[in-house]
């Protein structure tokens, strides 16, 4: 109906084309955001169009309003489309990128190395602890009483030669076995109780690949009423199976230790040959593992207990030897060498 198109139509058209083109050319999201502010932001060009409606003749206002709204719609749409496209492009770029190197080493500091004796000792302590044993610790410099006298080894006893002793100038000694804690434990705990006490022991002897003047043992002690060899057998089999992580067959044979009666050497069936006989077990089918026995009544008395009422069993296990067996250590002297070339293997 109107022959002359109002001048604003061309202007709106040009403006729209200009914005659509600029939006289409936006290179990244930050640039797009700037265009958004400059176009449809509070002070933007497109926003400004709506404010111009009042300046037009009333008959044109409706058309102008519609046209300006249309511009706004087109620009909004273009912004949204461009945003989607740009985001997709980033996503595509990340997914297409092949430069990430997953093989670079981890960042946490390297761990250190526990001593193998600590490892095995901790395992043993946890096995015993889970079975109700206290884990105790007793002095290394000991009295003659606790190391010998209380264990039914009076001064004239030949067994004192069996364990060559380091004597101190003050009259004490370096304990020759962890059994020195037996009477201490009896004096500390009200029976019934069960306990293990691991630690360093000392023997006055020359060293070689299988002898060391300082080594580690763990002592086990149980005190209860009506303790029998049958209980000792059961406990030893259960505990050794847990420690050696396999079902073991054990046998007891007579062994002499003054602080137990009866006293035993406990053998385990050779795990290399299954008892048939091989070079490891010297063809006997059995490996000597530890001495044990029922606690001698003299020892119970020295511990302040009445042997009529209380009995017990005890064993002594060589920790150093167990470590050597477990890890194939060829020379016992490596254990206390402080040589990190050895220690960093664990």
């Amino acid at each position, binding site marked *: 109906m109107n022959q002359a198109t109002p001048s604003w139509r061309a202007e709106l058209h040009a403006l729209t084309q200009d914005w659509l083109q600029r939006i289409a050319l936006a290179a990244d999201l930050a640039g797009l955001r700037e265009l958004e502010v400059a176009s449809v932001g509070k002070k933007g060009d497109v926003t400004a169009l709506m404010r111009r409606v009042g300046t037009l003749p009333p008959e044109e206002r409706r058309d102008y309003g519609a046209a300006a709204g249309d511009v706004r719609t087109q620009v909004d749409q273009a912004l949204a489309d461009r945003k989607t496209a740009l985001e997709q492009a980033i996503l595509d770029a990340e997914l297409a990128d092949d430069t990430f190197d997953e093989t670079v080493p981890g960042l946490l*500091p*390297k761990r*250190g190395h*526990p*001593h193998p004796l*600590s490892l095995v000792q901790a395992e043993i302590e946890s096995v015993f*602890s889970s079975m*109700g044993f206290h*884990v*105790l*610790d007793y*002095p*290394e*410099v000991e*009295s*003659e*009483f606790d190391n010998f*006298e*209380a264990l039914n080894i*009076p001064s*004239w006893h*030949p*067994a004192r030669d069996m364990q060559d002793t*380091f*004597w*101190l*100038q*003050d*009259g*004490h000694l370096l304990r020759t076995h962890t059994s020195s804690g037996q009477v201490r434990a009896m004096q500390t705990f009200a029976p019934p*109780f*069960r*306990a293990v006490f691991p630690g*360093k022991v000392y023997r006055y002897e020359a060293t070689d690949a299988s002898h060391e*003047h*300082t080594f580690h043992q763990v002592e086990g002690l149980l005190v*209860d009423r009506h*303790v*029998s*060899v*049958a*209980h000792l*057998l*059961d*406990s030893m*089999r259960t505990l050794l199976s847990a420690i050696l992580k396999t079902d073991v067959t054990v046998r007891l*044979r*007579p062994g*002499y230790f003054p602080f137990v*009666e009866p*006293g035993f050497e406990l053998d385990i069936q050779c795990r290399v040959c299954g008892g048939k006989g091989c070079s490891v077990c010297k063809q006997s089918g059995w490996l000597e593992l530890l001495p044990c026995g029922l606690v001698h009544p*003299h020892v119970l008395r020295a511990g302040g207990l009445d*042997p009529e009422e209380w009995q017990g069993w005890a064993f002594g296990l060589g920790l150093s030897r167990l470590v050597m067996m477990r890890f194939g250590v060829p020379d016992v002297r490596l254990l*206390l060498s*402080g*040589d*990190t*070339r050895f*220690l*960093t293997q664990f």
Partner: protein
Amino acid sequence: MFVSWRWISQWVDTSGVDPVAFAGRFTCTVAEIDHVIQVGPGLENVLVADVIGVEDHPNADKLHIATVDLGGRTERVVCGAPDLRLGMRVPFVPPGVTLPSGITVREGEVRGVRSPGMLASEADLGLSEDHTGLLSLDGCTAPAGTPLLDAVEVSDTLYEVDNKSITHRPDLWGQYGMAREVAAMLDKPLQPLDLAVTLGQGMPVDLQVQAPDLCPRYLCARIEDVTLAPAPVDLRLRLRRLGVRPISNVVDATNLVMLETGNPLHAFDARFLHGQTIRVRRATPGETLRTLDGSDRVLTANDCVIADADRPVALAGVMGGEESEIRPDTRTVVLEAAAFDAATIRKTAMRLGMRTESSARFEKSLDPALAATAARRFLGLLLQVSPGARITSGLADVGPFGSQPPAPIRIATTSTYLRGRLGVSPAEMADAWIDHCLQALEFQVDRQGDAVTVTVPGFRATRDIRLAEDLVEELGRHYGYQRIVSKAPLIPSRPPELPPLRRLERDVRAILVQRAGLTEALLYGFDDEKQRTRLGLHEPTADGGDLPRLGLRNAISSEMSRLRRNLAPNLISAIERNLLTGDGRQASKKGFQVGMFEIGRVFVPVPDRTLAPHEQAAVDRGVPALLDDPTAAATYLGRMSPEMRLGVTEAAARATPLPWQPIRLGLVLAERLGGGADGAKTAIPPQEVTERLFRTVVGALEAVAEAAGLGGLTVTRGDLSQPLDLLRLPVAAPDLGATWLHPRRHGLIRSGDRVLGVVSALHPAVRQRLDVPAEVVLAELDLGALLQGERLVVRGGAPPTHPAVTQDFTLRRPRTDRVADLAAALRQVAVAVLPGSVEAVQYLYGLDDATGANPERALTFRVTCRAADRTIGSDEIARLVDKVSARFGVQAAPGDA
């Protein structure tokens, strides 16, 4: 100790028993067998031969040609033995035979003379090590050509028993004692020993036992018209098999009887007993005796000797004297069969370093009754091996045992008790079986229902069997421990204890390994004096002496003669070795780092001065403390035998407090510096390195403190030359005056006001002595003290509602200013501005100029504030910045508020 299966089979019917298969049972019942040795296999084709001709070898001076009769045929063989003579009987080995010694005899020529066989020595036949001459079969009555195994006593099965497994069994040191066990195992009768012998009349010598405490019994007899000769071949072979060298019929008879009964004997040549007198007495101090090994022995009053009218002629129970020993021309023999005090024999043998077959037996406490058995066996045997000999005296028997034999030991117990200790039921082990088993072992059993009184035979009563528990062992081993059905112990279950220190040890170890990346070492409890001297490591007192360390009476070497009172010296030596070698993953070169720690005991002598209360509490008083309360002591001692009660009270009287034995944590971290020249070793290590190592060690210790539940540690320098207030120290804190601590690069580690230990760079004087240029930082602290530090109380409050605000400050300060002091000053200012809102003042980093020329450094701290009731505003931060600027003259670091 060997057991001869052939010998014991004289007294026990062992037919049908395979001795090799039986060995396993023997080990589980009697004593541990180290080896089973079979003698005989491989000798089946060896024959008895008579030497009927001896001629010189035409081509060799030392060889002969022997013509031997093999019964129906003769052979001519080449022989090199020096003792070959006409009329001799010898073993002949035909060609094609491989002997146990590994020798294969071949028919061949020896220096041009054909030799179809060989005459053999003991060594050739594998009977002993002796290859000096032929095995003489003189005295063998079998016709020539008889197989050796049929002609003489050769074949046997020997058990080599571990002597340690029979130290408590004097009865097992003779074949007859072993036979008794085997008889009981096989449930067969044991033939008694033949003790019949016709004695003469009167005393053999003028005999007195003057030391009855050392010699409970001394038996003696005189034998005249003795002819010295080799013992019969079977007896010689028997001795050989049991490891004893045959000498002559008289000496061999003493040894055979010792092996048989377990009781050593001695034979004197009567010509050399001055005054035909024997006195058993203590030696006079300084008295000497030449023993038959040719050594002169100087004696003490603790030794027991056999003397004649003038001088000692034998060291009782250990070895005879040289002069009175049996000689080829001996005609009159005086026999000694005695029992000696075990402890005396043991001490004499040990002191003189002469453990003999005799002393080894006497020190086991032999039954004095056995001496009479042995004497009669000897006399019977001697008359056989020396035809014409006459016993011209009675068997004199002197000493307290004969006049006052000890009362037999009787043990009253019950079957219920015996079975209970083994854990078997009456169905498994009947009363009748118990009685039968004990009787087979020669116990006398008197039963009244369940109750049983057991009389111990003399040969088990000297030491071995005293208590019902000992009978439990007898029954258990003969019943078979493998037959006992195992039972789970019934014990009230109760959560086990893990002492706090033990728990802490574990936690500390885990943290140092897992978080600090250190390697755990366990080192000797002895100091290494050589290293201490070389590196100048010691613990001086204020007046320049050395702090006491516990010394050994019997050190292995002078370099290991004292116990360590600090962990550091051994750790320093160890770290030096590792700096030289690398750690097995990396070689040691510039920048190589090695860090290790030890958790272990040190030993600190209890000082002579009066102990402070906290020290007194740490002293282990052991036995005497037991006897403090008279009522408790009465109960305690009342349960003991008089002998044991005496032992315990004497031990208590002798007892002195044990030294302090605290558990310490020692930690050492080292980095190798560049170059190997002395220049590099004497230069001051780069501050960056020292600071980095120091901070790593402190960081590890902070993690340790955290594991111990402590609120935190402070590390500040002290004056190491001044003694600290002892009450502020744990009983045995590391020695703060030690020469390895750096007077200006160390810190005392405190929790609250208590010093737990010290961290320090290695003193430059020690560092420069290391064989490798390195900076070393070490720390040592008392783990027990760590448990007594100020604990952190953990609370689970709600998260804060208002945000925290941080502000960083960079202060330019003189290099002598300490970070801890500046942080404290900064905190003071912040608290004045924002009371109640300062959460933390942290050190972030410091910038120093590398040349060290600038006396100042820049240190950046971060202040974190948070109020409970509001968000802290920028105006408040602005005021903080103003105040800090006013106090320290600096600007806030930009961009943080």
